[in-house]
């Protein structure tokens, strides 16, 4: 994060953070920035949904049980999206945690809007 300059910072809200990464929302751009695996990547609504689908589709159990001597690397590739992650097993667990937490927070934000702002206009 320290190399990235985004101004003004108020338009950048943290959605969820773990010790391995963070997700920020830009209300102005209607998108999210994911700081993970050494890079900051931009995701719009469609690509964020695709990322979640791709991450949840990884069979972690199978990777852990795999005794073959091949590298435990998983490529998370999202169609029509600029980014692609090449992750080891620990990173897969980490990004899963990050994405799960992010969607819980987005859900919470939805509830807040539904129950507070949208009813008290």
């Amino acid at each position, binding site marked *: 994060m320290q190399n990235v300059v985004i101004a003004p910072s108020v338009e950048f*809200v943290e959605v969820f953070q773990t010790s391995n990464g963070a997700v920020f929302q830009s*209300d102005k751009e209607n998108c999210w920035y994911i700081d993970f695996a050494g890079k900051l990547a931009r995701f719009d609504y469609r690509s964020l949904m695709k990322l979640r689908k791709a991450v949840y589709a990884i069979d972690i159990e199978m990777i852990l049980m795999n005794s073959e001597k091949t590298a435990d690397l998983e490529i998370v590739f999202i169609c029509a999206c600029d980014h692609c992650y090449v992750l080891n097993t620990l990173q897969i667990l980490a990004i899963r945690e990050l994405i799960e937490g992010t969607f819980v927070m987005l859900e919470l934000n939805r509830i807040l809007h539904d129950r507070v702002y949208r009813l008290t206009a």
Partner: protein
Amino acid sequence: MKDITRVQCLLSTEIEALLNQQIKKEAQSSSAYLAMASWCDSHGFDYSSDYFFKQSEEERMHQMKIFKYVLDMGGNAISPEVTNIQLEFNSFKEVFEEALEAEISVTQSLKNIAANCYKEQDFVTIEFLNWFFKEQREEEYKARRALELFEVIGEEGTGRWEIDKHVNDIEYNSEA
């Protein structure tokens, strides 16, 4: 913080997934009816074959209706893969038994979606589903009536020929 996901899509992730599941179910019904039409035709039951052709087209229409709804609400409609269609039947009667069983399972699946909609107060989707509930009334009625012909007419002698002739006359016209 803006509620971007809600702005993009009216449906929750769960309801969107359930609707996509239903899209698949309708596609499967359409293919299953087509297989029944084929079986009936090749066994000389022309009227029943016509009946199942029509049913197959109706199921395709149901599929498209849900497909477009998901898209219109900002969701991602998934073109389903259809596999494991039953092509062979042991008897003329078994075809109709399978048809009724399939309709019952569709009704059940729609009820499950509505139950989830109530849970999260998605009244918009419930209103959309109401058309399907009325449709299922007709679908189950017709399938049940067809099966009843086997009891009323009987399969002996020219029975099956008589049954086949009457299948296409089955109509449901309740005003309620």
